[in-house]
């Protein structure tokens, strides 16, 4: 009986009628108590093996020297972590170069991925014939995978054969920009492609948020004589705050996890300057056979991201006060 009432309460509903409670209590038996767990079981098996176990295993790996080719995997304490922070270790230079690459990409791409989609969403939030069509067109690149996007843009950005330089030439701009092989062009390309690829996704999230803002607020602002910019500042932005927090947090995470674009488009060039953390971790762990060190890197990386996400939440809470 108590059980049934709590279900209702947890869902925010009124407690179910007494008749129902009595009926349920009457039929409650051993099988009945097992039912919820039976429903959960298939998922929990998957979740245990591929969701929880990797976390535990990751921590365990990070304190061992785990070389795929060696039979012994001795406990090394925090050595794998220390290596990442001491400048005389072999891995130090490459590791921090990859952190730097990831940071550069994130810092360059996030503002654009927050602002450009907002512009698109504001545009698409007006009512006009064909709105659904344009919304679909702007979203379309997002459904393609990074493998297709990578190959396509490697071709489009090719210095000689690529469409980008050709079109620039047609309008009288320099037509020999080394988009994927030189700095700063490599970063411009990676950021540009990512904005093209994923803006539609963020725009859709903004659109949903915009539709939740009450039209009366705009009406009131208009009555007070607010112009378009003032309405944007005082109605749209505050109304979008939770959505903005979501967009910024998920975009930071997505950008920090960038791998495919630089792997396929710039191929890490020039040198290894555009090799990101994720790329470096998988290379270290699987190609260079040091799973322990790679696990330590993963944990340091995940902690860095946690700090950044937390800072986001903080920042937004202060703004609200």
């Amino acid at each position: 009986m108590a059980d049934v009432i709590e279900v209702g309460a947890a869902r925010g509903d009124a407690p179910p009628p007494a008749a129902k409670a009595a009926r349920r209590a009457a039929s409650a038996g051993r099988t009945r108590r097992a039912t919820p767990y039976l429903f959960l079981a298939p998922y929990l098996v998957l979740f245990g093996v591929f969701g929880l176990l990797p976390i535990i295993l990751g921590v365990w790996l990070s304190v061992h020297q785990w070389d795929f080719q060696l039979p012994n995997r001795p406990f090394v304490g925090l050595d794998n972590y220390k290596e990442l922070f001491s400048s005389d270790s072999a891995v130090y230079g490459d590791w921090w170069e990859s952190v730097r690459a990831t940071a550069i990409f994130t810092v360059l791409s996030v503002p654009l991925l927050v602002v450009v989609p907002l512009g698109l969403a504001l545009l698409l939030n007006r009512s006009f014939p064909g709105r659904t069509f344009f919304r679909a067109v702007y979203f379309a690149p997002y459904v393609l995978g990074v493998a297709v996007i990578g190959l396509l843009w490697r071709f489009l950005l090719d210095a000689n054969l690529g469409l980008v330089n050709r079109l620039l030439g047609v309008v009288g701009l320099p037509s020999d920009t080394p988009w994927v092989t030189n700095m700063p062009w490599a970063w411009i390309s990676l950021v540009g492609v990512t904005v093209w690829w994923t803006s539609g996704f963020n725009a859709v999230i903004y659109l949903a948020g915009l539709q939740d803002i009450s039209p009366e607020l705009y009406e009131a602002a208009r009555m007070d004589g607010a112009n378009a910019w003032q309405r944007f500042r005082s109605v749209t932005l505050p109304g979008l705050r939770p959505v903005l927090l979501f967009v910024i947090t998920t975009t930071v995470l997505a950008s920090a996890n960038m791998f495919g674009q630089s792997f396929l488009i710039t191929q890490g060039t020039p040198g290894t300057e555009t090799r990101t953390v994720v790329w470096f971790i998988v290379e270290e762990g699987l190609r260079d056979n040091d799973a322990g060190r790679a696990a330590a890197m993963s944990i340091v990386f995940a902690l860095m991201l946690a700090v950044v996400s937390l800072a986001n939440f903080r920042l937004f809470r202060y703004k609200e006060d």
Partner: protein
Amino acid sequence: MTTPTPTTGGSASGLRRVGLYTTLVVLALIFLVPLLWMVITSLKTYTAAQQIPPSWLPNPLAGYGYEQVINNSANPVLRWFLNSMVAATLHSLLVLVTASMAAYSLARLRFRGRGVTFALIVGTLFIPPTSLIVPNFLIVDQLNWIDTLAVIVVPGAASAFGVFFLRQFFLSLPDELEEAATLDGANQWQIFVKVVLPLSKPALATLAVLSFLTNWNDFLWPIFVLFSPEKLTLPPGLGLLQGSYVTDYPVIMAGAVLASLPVLILFVLAQRHIIQGVSRSGLKG
């Protein structure tokens, strides 16, 4: 961007309409021309693709890229296509079955440990999946799953997002339906299959499509767990294709078109579901 000044008359609003559509069309071209260029190039001959300045129409229209892609046994693109299709389909089925059952239990049944279980599942949403790739590799290695279909289908199916998404939907269903079914003598399994699932078709379809897309497009995981050329899925296969045809763009673009077609078709068919699913998961997530 158009300037949203107050409407003063018919001509002004007409002008604004022109501005609006010009912006929309220019943006649409930016989003579509690269995709069109992929299709156009895939229909060119090798020489035509090297031509400067390039022609906008594939003249002569050539099946060369597709022939190379389909007939080359060193790069069995059709095989990769089939592998991707089977893997993505099985993967989304597995997500649907396991996540919907778990979500039903968490949303509509009462049991000891429910809160903790749900918190644990949602908690893992905040761990970047890429940081688990090395331990996950060791696990599938222990299972002897490297270079098999299972390695693409199963590990990613432990979808915390799927459980969370469906649970939110199931919570919104009215209690009365369940009560009526119970009066008719239905057990929990019957309620789940005959009442809850049919009412949740939109949410299930959304999750199915999103899972399919994710699996079809996955790149990082397959390149580390698949090795034999005939076992690859399309994304790592395309990388191989680029390696063998370096600058033969009609062939590479033909491969890219083949990899894009299913997801673009799926997008056109399920556009509303996908876009709604994305916005819902964004806001309520």
